[in-house]
């Protein structure tokens, strides 16, 4: 029997998901993973919470050991860079190993932060949160940092501002937009987060552009459109851009979102080559326009699809509604699909319903407010987006609403939804239903 060799480039969530699925689909296959880094099988998403001291150490972020992968038959080549791909010859060029043949190739090269594009970008003292070993080193540096600047209020930026404030560091957030996470949230959702950051001591510089970084060897100040901020550290949290250099050099095609073009099976434009994770783009379930730079859960699921199909199985991925949620400041925020800002930007016809509800029975200790905003298509009243801010229960609602968007649920259905009522975990009136009812009332009036 011929043993197929499946090569995976990249050891992040997508790469490890792909390798595991490939091995599960074809246990006889030789599955080889190349990673530039020292480790695989950890959660980089947990790094900000170690910096913020919510998680006591980095070791807890590791999900599996090197031995775990060896035992499961996945051959991981650590600190080994793939320098080229020859799709015609079905081989990859590997630093230190030469040309390595493959039968199937899965590209999971992840993302790079968008370059700052200002003078001084090469200075030391710029922290790009990505690799856990570097994070461990930076965590020691943070002990001596008095003032830090976080550049851009991306999801990671929100987490890092919160983490640095928890750490007692004077934290400045510099962002060119009018409010935090403006690409995904609305001002009424971001507002409570920003207020809580100010109460935690953060200084927020919105509508502010970074123009330069200054220092002799290491950064000592940032210059912005609003003036200069002296600092010991800059945390770069710019947009995640697909890392497609290797793939596009080999002739694979990228789309308008910058990610590699794939189909529902994660097959690229080149036969025998699949791709998954932050290096690809996938269609949005409502607009069908491709988007890129999603979460670790998306990357892992895409990797599973790519690995299964590369090994000879059959699995399909769906267009995405992108449920998201996070802790920022003293709040949880989250949503799905379109925000009011994004729908307005794209000029997508929409109607909005908003409600403020509560997370538990009104008399139960620890009850918190939840603000829910629903967006619907005006003609059919199908749900096309949602936004939420509260102190608990955001993630579960975002997941539920993502299924509602995907399956075409309407505001009529949400307005009459049944809900769990139990004083410690749910109020009599579900805030989602209230927002839907308010939307219908608004239309009726």
């Amino acid at each position: 029997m011929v043993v197929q060799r499946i090569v995976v480039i990249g050891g992040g969530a997508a790469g490890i998901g792909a390798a595991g699925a490939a091995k599960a689909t074809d246990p006889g296959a030789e599955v080889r993973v190349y990673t530039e880094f020292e480790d695989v099988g950890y959660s980089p998403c947990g790094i900000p919470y170690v910096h913020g001291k919510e998680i006591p150490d980095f070791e807890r972020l590791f999900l599996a050991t090197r031995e775990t992968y060896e035992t499961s038959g996945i051959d991981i080549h650590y600190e080994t860079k793939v320098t080229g791909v020859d799709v015609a010859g079905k081989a990859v060029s590997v630093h230190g190993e030469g040309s390595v043949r493959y039968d199937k190739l899965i590209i999971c090269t992840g993302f790079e932060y968008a370059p700052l594009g200002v003078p001084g970008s090469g200075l030391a003292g710029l922290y790009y949160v990505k690799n856990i070993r570097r994070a461990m080193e930076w965590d020691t540096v943070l002990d001596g940092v008095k003032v830090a600047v976080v550049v851009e209020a991306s999801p990671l930026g929100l987490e890092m501002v919160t983490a640095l404030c928890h750490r007692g560091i004077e934290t400045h957030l510099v962002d060119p937009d009018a409010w935090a996470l403006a690409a995904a949230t609305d001002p009424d959702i971001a507002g409570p987060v920003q207020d809580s950051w100010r109460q935690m001591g953060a200084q927020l510089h919105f509508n502010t552009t970074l123009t330069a970084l200054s220092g002799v060897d290491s950064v000592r100040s940032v210059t912005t459109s609003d003036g200069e901020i002296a600092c010991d550290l800059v945390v770069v949290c710019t947009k995640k851009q697909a890392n497609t250099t290797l793939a596009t050099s080999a002739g694979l095609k990228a789309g308008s979102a910058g990610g590699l073009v794939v189909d529902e099976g994660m097959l690229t434009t080149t036969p025998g080559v699949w791709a998954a994770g932050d290096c690809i783009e996938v269609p949005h379930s409502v607009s069908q326009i491709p988007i890129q730079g999603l979460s670790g859960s998306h990357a892992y699921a895409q990797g599973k699809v790519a690995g299964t199909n590369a090994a000879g199985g059959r699995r399909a991925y769906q267009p995405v509604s992108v449920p998201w949620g996070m802790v920022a400041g003293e709040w949880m925020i989250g949503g799905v699909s379109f925000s009011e800002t994004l729908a307005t930007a794209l000029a997508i016809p929409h109607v909005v319903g908003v409600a403020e509800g509560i997370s538990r029975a009104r008399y139960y200790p620890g009850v918190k407010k939840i603000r829910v905003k629903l967006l619907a298509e005006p003609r059919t009243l199908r749900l096309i987006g949602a936004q939420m801010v509260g102190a608990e229960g955001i993630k579960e609602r975002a997941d539920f609403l993502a299924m509602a968007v995907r399956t075409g649920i309407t505001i009529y259905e949400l307005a009459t939804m049944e809900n769990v009522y139990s004083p410690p975990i749910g109020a009599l009136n579900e805030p989602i239903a209230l927002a839907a009812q308010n939307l219908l009332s608004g239309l009726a009036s």
Partner: protein
Amino acid sequence: MAFSRWLRATSERYLMIAAQHKLAVKYGVPPPRRPRGADLFWLRVYVPAYRAVPWRVRSAIMRRMPGSHRRTWTTGDRSRGQAV
């Protein structure tokens, strides 16, 4: 950068700035900075022109751009059709 990617990135940037202006007024928060230089063209010419075109036409144009959406994708519930 491919033209389609540049066009999309630049278009999205200015459409978002214009949307932030609208939402800032609606919710009473500070709006984005006043446009200057090349911003003026995009915000005063491109954005109004974009908005003047019906969504279904705009959507059809966007879907003709190269990308993953033009390959095979099975949606979860085909019976209800496209939402927007």
